[in-house]
């Protein structure tokens, strides 16, 4: 038994602890722990802080990032903490354990015609804890808001094993500093989220997709921009390249603009007509199960590949980002969020030059460019990054407050 596994045997009983386990971004853990109680989980972090080994919290494992943690470390899985704690449909709120998947949340809320309106890649296998830890943005955020806006409260175990109950279960809460916002998107660098309370929404009665296709993504930039400045806000609007909507009865063209319109039947028809009139081009309307399948395909488009890159800019610059990814050699899958001005691109192989070029474009636009997945060598390619030294200092001091021994996600910045 490794030193690390031996140290943990005291806090995590037999079935919760196993030696080794799946690699994280190529790094091998000494052990994988799956606690079944908050006390056990806190015990693991206390032992790690005392003994000085690293801890990598993992939920659904859908979003591990390209940077391997420093060894030695253990993987701390939240999958032993699952299930709904409280669900009050009339309050539109739910509290559930962090290891509950978004698919499971959807099953429970769907029975009451409610939902958690997020659509990131691999949505059903992501966990609620992972949603809080990543704060992942997705196209529906354009109309519904982001995870940060709808996570009302969470329970956190800090790097040194303190259990903090942050936020609450009510829609509006300004009692003290908003540590929930600090935690959402902190990617496991401040603590391990063990329970989450979210705000839910009534599931729209009707949803349709307005689809426009073209041979080149650039031909759809103008209509996409028209949608994102239209007087009516769609549920989401994405521009996909390397995506064929044949499944939804469309021609096999290289690029598609898909606008999601949701609401009461009469509202949907009127909103669709207003968008059509504002954009001027002609959309094809896809409805029912076909529309649902299309939204699901789009959700996971551009998220699988040897290299996955996420770029951010302002909505008005989305055409510049699309041009930059179009210049990447080889076949690429691209999904642009026209409302947010962000682009996700998946490629089989990404050269150092192409990566540097993408980062240069993002820097010129004052935006962001992040490698979500890909070969580690790419991270060594220099790219322009703005001077944020005071922000970096604040970040590392905040981290030290929550994880004084520095055991969480060693080797990665949030």
């Amino acid at each position, binding site marked *: 038994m490794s030193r690390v596994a031996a140290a943990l045997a005291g806090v995590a009983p037999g079935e919760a602890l196993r030696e080794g386990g799946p690699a994280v971004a190529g790094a091998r853990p000494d052990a994988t722990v799956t606690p079944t109680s908050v006390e056990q989980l806190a015990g693991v972090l206390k032992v790690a802080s005392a003994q000085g080994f690293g801890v990598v919290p993992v939920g659904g494992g859908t979003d591990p990032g390209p940077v391997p943690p420093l060894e030695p470390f253990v993987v701390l899985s939240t999958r032993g903490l699952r299930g709904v704690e409280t669900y*009050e*449909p*009339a*309050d539109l*709120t739910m509290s559930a354990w962090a290891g509950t998947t978004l698919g499971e949340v959807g099953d429970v809320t769907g029975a009451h*015609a409610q939902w958690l309106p997020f659509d990131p890649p691999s949505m059903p296998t992501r966990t609620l804890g992972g949603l809080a830890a990543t*704060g*992942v*943005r997705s196209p529906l955020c354009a109309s519904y*808001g982001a995870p*940060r*806006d709808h996570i009302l409260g969470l329970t956190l175990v800090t790097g040194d094993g*303190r259990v*903090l*109950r942050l936020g*609450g*279960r*009510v*829609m*509006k*809460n*300004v*009692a*003290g*500093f*908003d*540590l929930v*916002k*600090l935690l959402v*998107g*902190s990617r496991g660098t401040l603590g391990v989220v063990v329970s989450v309370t979210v705000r839910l929404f*009534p*599931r729209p009665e009707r949803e349709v997709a307005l689809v426009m296709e073209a041979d080149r993504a650039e031909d759809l930039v103008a209509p996409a921009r028209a949608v994102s*400045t239209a*007087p*009516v*806000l769609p549920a989401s609007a994405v521009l996909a390249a390397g995506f064929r909507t044949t499944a939804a009865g469309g021609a096999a063209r290289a690029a598609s603009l898909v606008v999601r319109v949701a*609401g*009461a039947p*009469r*509202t949907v*028809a*009127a909103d669709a007509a*207003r968008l059509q009139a504002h954009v001027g081009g002609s959309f094809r309307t896809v409805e029912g199960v076909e529309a649902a399948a299309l939204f699901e395909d789009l959700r996971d488009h551009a998220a699988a590949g040897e290299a996955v890159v*996420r770029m*951010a800019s*302002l*909505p008005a610059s989305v055409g510049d980002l699309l041009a930059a990814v179009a210049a990447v050699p080889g076949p690429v899958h691209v999904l642009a969020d026209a409302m947010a*001005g962000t682009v996700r691109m998946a490629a089989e192989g990404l050269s150092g030059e192409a990566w540097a070029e993408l980062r240069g474009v993002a820097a010129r636009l*004052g*935006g962001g*460019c992040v490698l979500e997945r890909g070969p580690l060598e790419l991270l060594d390619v220099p790219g322009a990054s703005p001077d944020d030294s*005071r*922000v970096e200092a*604040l*970040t590392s001091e*905040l981290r030290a*407050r*929550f994880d004084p021994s520095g055991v969480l996600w060693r080797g990665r910045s*949030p």
Partner: protein
Amino acid sequence: MVGRDHVITEAGRLLVYESDGLSAYRWPPRAVVLPASAEEASGVLRLLHAEGIPVVPRGAGTGLSGGALAPEGAVVVGTARMNRILAVDPPNRLARLQPGVLNTRLSDAARPFGLYYAPDPSSQAACTIGGNVAENSGGPHCLKYGVTSRYISGLTLAMVDGELVQIGGAGRDPEAGYDLVGLVVGSEGCFAMVVEVEVRLLPLPEAVRTLLGIFESVEDAARAVTAVIGEGLLPAALEIIDQGTIRAVEASVYAAGYPTDAGAALVVEFDGTQAGLDEDARRAEACCLAAGAREVRRARDATERLALWQGRKKAFGAMGRVAPDLLVQDATVPRTRLPEVLGRIGEISRRYDLTVGNVFHAGDGNLHPNILFDRRNREELERVEKASKEIMAVCVEAGGTITGEHGVGVDKRGYMRLVHGADEIEAMRGVKAVFDPRGLFNPGKVLPDEEAP
């Protein structure tokens, strides 16, 4: 640095700054400085930091929890002159502005582009965006649209040592790094001074439908609210006004034609695409009638809409006229617990022989019990404090919290331990220390005193 006229030290001119919307307190500041730009604010803070002088950032002073009160020896840095809208960017639906811009002025500036700024606190004609950022302000329409934090995409901060730091920004990757913007919004001026704000704007809704339900009791109105939500409807606003408040409004210059024998009135508003609104309004009306509404009025035009809103919007003003002082309380409970909590608030006010009027954002479960009193009557003031504390305890017991949108400030510090444990409060203290290690920013606010060991 800012010009002699913009440094106030004369006792007479300081009077304006000795209190805010929490009228029971009077704390005169040592001085007031009014910078006109981020650079001037930075210079002022650098100087105060070098001298070790505590700082209280202040917007319009409309806050209701005492957040802008200056503790002994503190200097107020006001944003009254930082009142320029720097840019409205319709293609990206953003605006950049200085913190002293009034909330309604921002929407006025965006309207020609078909856009508006969604958060609309009741004091919106008087309060500043900087103050809204400090308090994470809400408003009647945040049921559908969310609170201030959802609309703040970037901030420029003057740190305690005067350094200017930009955080967030709509064009930056929102998933990279900690959400410092989210952390600073609602920090009540305890972390840094906000010197520039970037906000998201929304397209103006095509149409609005406003209903007013008249009920025999507050409980019936609260049941109607639950029914409307249960229908899967998402109104822009759901607001309840109780009998005491209706009578105060009707007795004032703001009289809105609400029946004074009614137990409660409920304002329901839908906005969005014209085509769906009549159906939404029809379903909400049915919910009100099923919950026992005596009548449901429907606004036919903008003038009638304003009339229906009048009783809600002018409630605080009308209540304020009835007694020398008004304590505007604020707490949130899960929406389904509203009827029970309202009943218990009524019982508490009777027991302490106080007049309490309830006006509240029912859709969010955000209560505003307003207690009338006269601060010159010490014995009554004590009863007000005791009743407030009990009301807070009832809300927390029901699964709620001690403030939904007004902040902790000075007023609620004593209640913080009702909702947070010692570890949580220490964690908040630790985060404050990261921004402000010497405790110079708005001292004595939000966090309770450290417990004796």
